[in-house]
């Protein structure tokens, strides 16, 4: 299933975020420019304290920049009130966290449908979209299970289904494989990659090179600044020449 919409899904323009004031203030991000297009998977790497999680929070409208602008699907988040921001987050942005953040008293399908129902989608339609999202992450048969009846990897798939349900175009993932074994982590990367290939913009914060390597572009943060970017060449001839050298 492909996802339609503007080409440029996320844009951060000269975004800075400072915590505290005066001599004790800490600059988490300094004039960061970053654009993620539809169908693009971007990984953000950097030491702890480099600003990775701040960047993700600003990108999803969970926090506001001290200066600069954030646009999601061409909408400037700075111009939105709290209710409008919450509505945009529910409709356009999906989050995946390391600790899943699922509701234990709801089934997998109910967890996935929750943001749609909060947004006023009719229960039947929400349920249909929920099942579709669970199908896309490969666990439609677990729809009626509760969280304590699922493995960590399965719960993370539910969390990803909740992030993509309703074809949200911006997926933000913060160390989503942190608590998972390597095979399950690989499965999570496959799902994120598939979403990007279907047209979503995906931003992954990770310290694992093997996960960052699934991205089209790797952005390196240090001291709140983007210091480097690596884009895959995807040229078999170059690849073989490298390996043979």
């Amino acid at each position, binding site marked *: 299933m492909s996802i339609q919409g503007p080409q440029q899904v996320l844009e951060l323009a000269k975004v800075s975020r400072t915590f505290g004031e005066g001599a004790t203030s800490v600059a988490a991000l300094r004039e960061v420019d970053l654009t993620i297009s539809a169908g693009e998977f971007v990984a953000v*790497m950097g*030491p*702890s*304290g*480099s600003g990775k999680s701040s960047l993700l929070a600003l990108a999803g409208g969970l926090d506001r920049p001290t200066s600069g602008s954030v646009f999601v699907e061409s909408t400037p988040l700075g111009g939105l009130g709290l209710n409008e921001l919450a509505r945009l987050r529910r409709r356009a942005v999906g989050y995946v966290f390391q600790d899943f953040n699922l509701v234990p008293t709801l089934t997998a399908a109910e967890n996935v449908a929750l943001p749609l129902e909060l947004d006023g989608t009719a229960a039947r339609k929400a349920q249909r979209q929920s099942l579709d999202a669970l199908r896309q992450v490969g666990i439609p048969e677990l729809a009626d299970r509760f969280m304590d009846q699922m493995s960590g990897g399965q719960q993370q798939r539910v969390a990803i289904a909740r992030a993509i349900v309703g074809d949200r175009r911006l997926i933000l993932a913060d160390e989503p494989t942190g608590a998972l074994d390597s095979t399950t982590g690989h499965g999570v990367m496959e799902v994120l*990659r598939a979403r990007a290939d279907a047209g979503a913009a995906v931003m992954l914060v990770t*310290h694992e*090179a*093997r996960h*960052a*390597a*699934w*991205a*089209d572009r*790797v952005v*390196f943060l240090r001291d709140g600044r983007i*210091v*480097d*970017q*690596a*884009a*895959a*060449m*995807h*040229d*078999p001839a*170059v*690849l*073989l020449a*490298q*390996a*043979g050298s």
Partner: protein
Amino acid sequence: MSIRHSLLALLQDQPRYGYQLRVEFENRTGATWPLNIGQVYTTLDRLERDGLVNNDGADGEGHVIYSITAAGKAEVEGWFTVPVERANPPRNELAIKLALAVTLPGVDVQGIIQAQRVATIRALQDYTKSRRDTAASPRSTDTAWLLVLDSLIFQTEAEVRWLDLCEARLVQQAQIAGQGGNGQGAARKTPNGVTMEEAAPLAPETRR
């Protein structure tokens, strides 16, 4: 890489001529290590000299066919049985470069590490993409290529982790130098998630 043993192993499968050996080698290793046809003929001459292959003469099209001897089969069996020796240790240009960089004044070691990290991650992206593409539509001949790609992915990932460790040690050294102390203290994470304990073995006096 042992071209000698690789060619013998292919001849154990069936008699072949030089060009066939080259193509078979490259097919089975995903063309990762291209073979020069000159190397193939030189190696076949030596294998014949050592009694490990027979020159069976030309086929109808003028190709010189080689077959493996009993001694050659024993040699292949020995190659598969004995673990690959780690050459003493293998020369690693990156390790040598960084070892020299940290001992010379005025060299931006962090800059070297970051430039290498970008290049290595780029290679890792390419290997990962290639692995994904190959796994998505596997052909029977792709199994060997997937194994080779996995090996390259593991090696490349290990290089990134090692670069993280190098950087963590540099940060630790800078902190020790800044404190004027011995750096002993609670284990805590350095910027790339490496614990101070992991980074600790490099005492400052041993590096300068």
